[in-house]
């Protein structure tokens, strides 16, 4: 395992150790916010696997997130199924099904451009949001409220700390799976497709199969994230399927640095930590500020926040080399 990966994992593992301290300090709100960050973190991982590692610019990942959330909400409220293991299994199945349908449409034929994929996924997210808004069966604009607390081994998970650990556990599992994939030969193969998909085909790679596989995997991650979101928040609404969340996810990845796992997660944690407060302090300006931040990042740090470390490492290397010479 690379040094940077080890450091990142150590930081991630430190969070649940520190968080009970916050809980003991009575800060339930922080625990809920941290839970949300881990859930969105699963969504970020799904985009990073697609876009950052395979070059599939998915601009509608919230659609899978929301669909997973709606299925979880439906099972819990209509079918009285609250077992978290069962709900997550259904979310996996839903992710596989939805991901396969979209992936086959996008990648089973000839090579398609990044922009085409972005537009198709964006439209899917838009249509899903519109559908959820108008379909009374899924609560129209109100979504599905009053989702009961999930159960685990027959016990109700009613405390925020319990939900936090579940979210963290699933996030950590997703993170380990993603790192495992990237460090395997499969990771090298999807990177080859990302960097030059035509060249990869000339080596003999089945580009289409690799893209379909990774798209389905990321749809599963998003769907599981959505199910966890619905269970921890107690509701799911059309906004969880829509453009705003899809755009936010892309924003976190761009700000943090596409092609890395920790950069986008740090960007997510930073922005989500201040999001609620900033919206109340600067209701009309906050979205503009985020836009400006995105613009500045793209101009001055096109590889995102993580490239700051890379730049300083390169500078240090250059200084060492000039000293030697």
């Amino acid at each position, binding site marked *: 395992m690379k040094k940077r990966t080890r450091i990142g994992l150590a930081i991630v593992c430190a969070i649940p150790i520190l968080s009970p301290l916050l809980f003991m300090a009575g800060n339930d709100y922080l625990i809920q916010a941290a839970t949300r960050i881990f859930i969105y973190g699963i969504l970020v991982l799904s985009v990073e696997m697609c876009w950052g590692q395979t070059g599939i610019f998915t601009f509608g990942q919230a659609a899978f997130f929301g669909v997973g959330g709606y299925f979880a909400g439906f099972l819990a409220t209509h079918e009285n199924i609250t077992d978290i293991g069962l709900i997550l299994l259904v979310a996996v199945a839903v992710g596989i099904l939805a991901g396969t349908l979209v992936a086959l449409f996008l990648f089973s034929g000839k090579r398609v451009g990044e922009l085409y994929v972005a537009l198709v996924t964006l439209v899917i997210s838009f249509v899903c949001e519109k559908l959820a808004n108008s379909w009374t069966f899924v609560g129209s604009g109100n979504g599905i409220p009053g989702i009961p607390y999930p159960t685990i081994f027959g016990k109700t998970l009613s405390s925020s700390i319990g939900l936090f650990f579940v979210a963290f556990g699933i996030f950590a599992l997703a993170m380990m799976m993603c790192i495992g994939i990237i460090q395997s*030969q499969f990771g090298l193969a999807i990177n080859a497709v990302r960097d030059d998909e035509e060249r990869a085909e000339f080596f003999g790679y089945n580009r289409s199969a690799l893209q379909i596989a990774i798209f389905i995997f990321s749809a599963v991650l998003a769907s599981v994230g959505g199910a966890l979101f619905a269970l921890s928040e107690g509701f799911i609404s059309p906004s969880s399927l829509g453009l705003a969340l899809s755009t936010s996810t892309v924003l976190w990845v761009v700000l943090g640095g596409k092609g890395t796992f920790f950069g986008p997660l740090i960007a997510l944690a930073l922005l989500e930590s201040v999001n609620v407060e900033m919206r109340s302090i600067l209701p009309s300006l906050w979205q503009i500020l985020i836009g400006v931040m995105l613009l500045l990042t793209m101009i001055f740090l096109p590889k995102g926040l993580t490239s700051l470390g890379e730049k300083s490492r390169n500078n240090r290397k250059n200084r060492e080399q000039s000293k030697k010479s």
Partner: protein
Amino acid sequence: MKLLEVVGISKKFGNLAALTDVSIHVDANEIVGLIGPNGSGKSTLLHSICGRTIADGGSVLLNGKELVTTNPMVRAKSGMAIKFQLARIYVEKTVRENLMISLQAKDGMWSLIRSGTSKKFMPRIEELIVEFQLVDYADTEAKYLSHGQQQWLEIAMAMASNPSILLLDEPTAGMSPKERADTAKLIKSASAKCGVLIVEHDLDFIKNLCDRITVLHHGSVAASGTPKEIEDDPKVKEVYLTRV
């Protein structure tokens, strides 16, 4: 049986006939050169052979297997490997990783996920690193290699999986005389393991290297023969040599 047999290939782009009834062949362990002035159809022919362009008509047979309508992946799996004019390597990856990318390309998905062949390929990677003079750069990202080394790396990647036929598009473009001489040796040694088809502008380079040369002009074969025959052919002098 001929290793690579290209029969009656034609290709039109709109009203422009880029290739008209072109036939060439390459035998095992043979080096065949493909020359011609700009716009003569060399690249279109190479692309029709490797699957980047699908020909309008004709046949591309490799070891007797028809490939003319297949995609590049099928051709690669059938034993075809290509080095492009501008080195298309993975610049953010190390030399070793580049070679692994090439070697593992035909593995199944499950094998890739399990990293099932990484150990198996290590000796081959070391062998290629030595053969292509990249020992000091094995763990260097490919973007830091010189132009010549990048070209060698791409040839090494093409040779990695022991192809039946190696297609080289101007392998010495932009190289120093020393690098060109080294490249010629590498191609010669590659021909001991497979057939080689080279598209090249430099007749001096190609005539010392190839067993046979085919000259293209206006999308048709203008001449074909040994380097000596080609040099002495008045038609070739007229259409090609005077324009170099």
